[in-house]
C-alpha cells in the first residue's frame, strides 16, 4: 500500500494534510476574509438600498431609471441598487451599518430613524448642503417628520419626501343597503354608523330581533386585532382626544388620564358593539386589507387601492370619508419615507450628489407615484391627475390627500413601545383585562422599556 502511494507521488498522509489545509483555507475564506473585491472596485461606485414598496418589476424600473438618470449628473458613477425585503430590512441595515461597508444611500422610515439617530451611522446633510439646498430639503415639511430625522445636536440625518396613511374608506354598496346613514364626523359617531351597516345573511340588522351573529354578511367595520394593522390607526384615537400613548417625559404611558381613558372607551365600545369583525376573521393580511373592498365590511382604515385589488374587485364602489375627529381635533397616523446617507460612505461627495438627485421633486415624484404615496409637502389640486390603471385609484388617492393636513408621525423614542402597547390595549379591548389592570401593567412595561432603552 505504502509503495503504491509513494509511486503516485503523494502519500495518504500527505493527501490528508493537503485536504485539511485546503479545508481550513476554505473555512477562513468563508469567514469573510475576502473584502478585497469590494475595496478595489470602490472607485466611483455607490450602493443604494431600498425596500420594496411596489411590485418587483416597478421597483426594478425605478432603480434602473435612477441609476441611468444619475449618469447625467455624474458620468463615471455606477450605482448598484438592492431591494431589501421588509421582513429583514432592519436586520440587514443594522448589519451593514455596524460593518465597515454600509450602503451609501438608503430609504428610511421613522421607526428606523429612531434607531439610527444617536448612533452616528448616518451622515449629516447640513455638512454637505448649501443654505439654499438645505432650505429646499426642509421648508414646508411637517415638524414631526423633521424631528424624527434630527439629531441631538441639530444634525439632519435624513430628508423626508413621501408620506402615507390609511384613510377611512366606505363601501358604498353596504352604506346604501344600510339606508345611507349620515357619515360620521367624530370617532364616537363611528360606533352607531358601524352598527347601522352590520347585517346577517338573512338581511337583519345588528339591532334587529333575531340577528344571527354567527352568520354575518357585512360587518360595520374591520378591526384586525394585530399590531401590524393597528399600528396604523390606534394612536390617532389618543391624539384626537388630547392624549398620547407615551407621556411627555417619554418614560411612562401617556393615556392614564381622562382623555386617554375616554379614547380607550370609544375603541372598547366600538369593538364590543358586535359591529366590528371578529379578530380571527381572516388568516392572511391581504384579505384583511380588502375587507371593505370585498364588501365584507362597511368601512375600515385602509391602505391605498392598488391595480391588483381593483382587478380583483371590478365592481367595488368606494369613498374616502372625511377624517372623523375627537374633542382635541383630528389626527391620522402617518408613515414617512426618507433618504439618508451613510456616515462611513467611501464617496461622501458623490453620495450627497446622488441623494440630492433622488430628492429632486422630479425624481422623488417618480418614486411617490410608483408606491401610490403622497409628497410630504401640501399638494395643490389633484396630485394624481394623470390616469392610473383604474380611475378608482385616482379618486381614492386624491380624496385621501386631504388627510395630509392632519398627518402625524409616531413618537421619537429610543425604544419601540407600539407593539407591546397594542398587545396591552387588546388585552383590555377584547375582554382579558380591566382598564385599570391594563393601564397598571402597561405603565410598568413602558417604564421598564424606557429604563433599558436609555
Amino acid at each position: 500500500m505504502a509503495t503504491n502511494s509513494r509511486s503516485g507521488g503523494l502519500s495518504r498522509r500527505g493527501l490528508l494534510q493537503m485536504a485539511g489545509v485546503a479545508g481550513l483555507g476554505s473555512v477562513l475564506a468563508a469567514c469573510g476574509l475576502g473584502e478585497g473585491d469590494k475595496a478595489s472596485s470602490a472607485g466611483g461606485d455607490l450602493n443604494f438600498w431600498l425596500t420594496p414598496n411596489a411590485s418587483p418589476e416597478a421597483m426594478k424600473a425605478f432603480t434602473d431609471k435612477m441609476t441611468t438618470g444619475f449618469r447625467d449628473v455624474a458620468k463615471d458613477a455606477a450605482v448598484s441598487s438592492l431591494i431589501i425585503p421588509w421582513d429583514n430590512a432592519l436586520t440587514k441595515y443594522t448589519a451593514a451599518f455596524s460593518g465597515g461597508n454600509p450602503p451609501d444611500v438608503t430609504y428610511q422610515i421613522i421607526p428606523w430613524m429612531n434607531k439610527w439617530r444617536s448612533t452616528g451611522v448616518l451622515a449629516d446633510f447640513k455638512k454637505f448642503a448649501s443654505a439654499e439646498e438645505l432650505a429646499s430639503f426642509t421648508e414646508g415639511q411637517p415638524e414631526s417628520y423633521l424631528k424624527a430625522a434630527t439629531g441631538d445636536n441639530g444634525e439632519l440625518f435624513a430628508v423626508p419626501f413621501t408620506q402615507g396613511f390609511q384613510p377611512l374608506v366606505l363601501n358604498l354598496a353596504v352604506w346604501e343597503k344600510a339606508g345611507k346613514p349620515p357619515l360620521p364626523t367624530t370617532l364616537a359617531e363611528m360606533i352607531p354608523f358601524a352598527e347601522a351597516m352590520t347585517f346577517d345573511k338573512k338581511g337583519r340588522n345588528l339591532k334587529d330581533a333575531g340577528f344571527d351573529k354567527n352568520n354575518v354578511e357585512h360587518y360595520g367595520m374591520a378591526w384586525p386585532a394585530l399590531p401590524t394593522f393597528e399600528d396604523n390607526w390606534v394612536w390617532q384615537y389618543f391624539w384626537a382626544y388630547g392624549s398620547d400613548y407615551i407621556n411627555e417625559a417619554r418614560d411612562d404611558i401617556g393615556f392614564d388620564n381622562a382623555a386617554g381613558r375616554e379614547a380607550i372607551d370609544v375603541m372598547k365600545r366600538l369593538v364590543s358593539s358586535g359591529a366590528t369583525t371578529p379578530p380571527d376573521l381572516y388568516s392572511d393580511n391581504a384579505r384583511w386589507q380588502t375587507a371593505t373592498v370585498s364588501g365584507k365590511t362597511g368601512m375600515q382604515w385602509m391602505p391605498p387601492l392598488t391595480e391588483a385589488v381593483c382587478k380583483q374587485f371590478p365592481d367595488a364602489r368606494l369613498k374616502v370619508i372625511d377624517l372623523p375627529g375627537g374633542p382635541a381635533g383630528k389626527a391620522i397616523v402617518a408613515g414617512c419615507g426618507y433618504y439618508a446617507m451613510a456616515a462611513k460612505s467611501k464617496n461622501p461627495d458623490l453620495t450627497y450628489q446622488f441623494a440630492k438627485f433622488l430628492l429632486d421633486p422630479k425624481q422623488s415624484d417618480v418614486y411617490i407615484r410608483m408606491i401610490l404615496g403622497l409628497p410630504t409637502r401640501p399638494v395643490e389640486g389633484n396630485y394624481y391627475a394623470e390616469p392610473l390603471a383604474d380611475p378608482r385609484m385616482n379618486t381614492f388617492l386624491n380624496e385621501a390627500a386631504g388627510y395630509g393636513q392632519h398627518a402625524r408621525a409616531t413618537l421619537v423614542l429610543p425604544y419601540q413601545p407600539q407593539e407591546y402597547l397594542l398587545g396591552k390595549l387588546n388585552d383590555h379591548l377584547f375582554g382579558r383585562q380591566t382598564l385599570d389592570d391594563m393601564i397598571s401593567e402597561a405603565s410598568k412595561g413602558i417604564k421598564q422599556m424606557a429604563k433599558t432603552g436609555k
Partner: protein
Amino acid sequence: MSVRLVGVRRGAEAAGAPAGPGRADPPVRSAPAGTRAARRRRAGDLAPAGVFLAAKAVLFGAFMLFPFGYTIYLTFQRGSLLSGLEFAGLDNYRSIAGDLLFRQTLWNTLLFMAVLIPLTLVVTIGVGLLLSSKVRGMSVYRSLIYLPSLLSIVVAGLIWKMLIDSETGPLERFTSGVLHLDVPWLTDANTAIVFLSVVTLWTSIGFYSVIFMSAFNNVSEDLLDAARIDGANGWQTLTRIKLPLIKPVLQVVLVLVTINAVQLFDLIYVMTQGGPGTATYTAMWYIYQNAFNGGSVPYAATMSMVLLVVTAVIAAIFVRRSRGEESTDGHA
C-alpha cells in the same frame, strides 16, 4: 499481544475512526518508544488529525464559543452595537430582577411548557408504540408521520392558520358547521396556548415518535415473552416493562421538548405576534422584540442568559430526578 491490539482498535473506534470490514489493524512499530525517531513518527502520525481538529476548532470557536462568550460579555454592557457599548456591571441583571414584563413572559412560557410537554410525551409515546408494531405498510405510515417534521415551522404555522380561517378554513368549518362549536382558536388566551402547543406537536411528532419507536424496538423480546407467559396484559407490559426500559430515551426527549418549548418563537411570529393581547408573549418573543425591534441588545442578551439558566435548571431537575429513580430501581 492480541489483547494489546484489541485495545488499540477499541481506542481508535472510540475516537470515531471507521471500523469497516476491510480495515486492518495498524502495524506494530519496531522502533523503541521514547527515541527521537519514534517521537517524530508519532508527531507525523498526529499531524493530519491536528489539521482536521484545527478546522473543527476554528468552526466551533467561530460559531459557538465566540458568540456565546460575546453574549456573556454583552450582558455586562449598556448602549447599542452601533453607537458603542460601555461597562454596566450587573445593571442588566438587576433590571431583569425587577422586570415584571419579563416575569410575565416567563410565566407564559411555563404555561406553554405545562401544556406542550405532557401532550408531546403522551402522543409521541403512543405513536411510537404504534409505529413499532408489526403491521403491513408500516414504512408508509412512518414516512407519513415524519412528513410534518420536514416542513419549516413558518410553513406549518401558515398551513394551520389557513385551516382555522373563519371564512374558508376547513377545520373551522368542521368545528362550527358539523360540531356546532365556536372555537376561539387564537382569540382566547388559553385556547391560543393550547393551539400553539398542538401545532408545535404536529411539527415534531415524527421526530419524537421515531425516537420512541426505535426505543420500543430495542426492548428485548425475551422480556416481553416472559411477561406474557406470566400473564401480563398489554397495559401492564407497557407500564411495567416497556416504559421503565426506555426511561433514558424518555429523559432525552423530555429535555429536548423542554428546550423546544422554551425556544418557541417562529410560530408566535407567524400565528399570533404575541396575541391575543399579550397572552402569547413568551420569553423568546420578548427577547426578540428587545434585540431587533428597538430595545436594548445587551438587555436582550442578559435575558437570553437568564433563560439559558432557567432551561438548564429545568433540564437538570429532569435528569437528576430520572437518575434518582434509576438508582432507586437499582437498589430495589
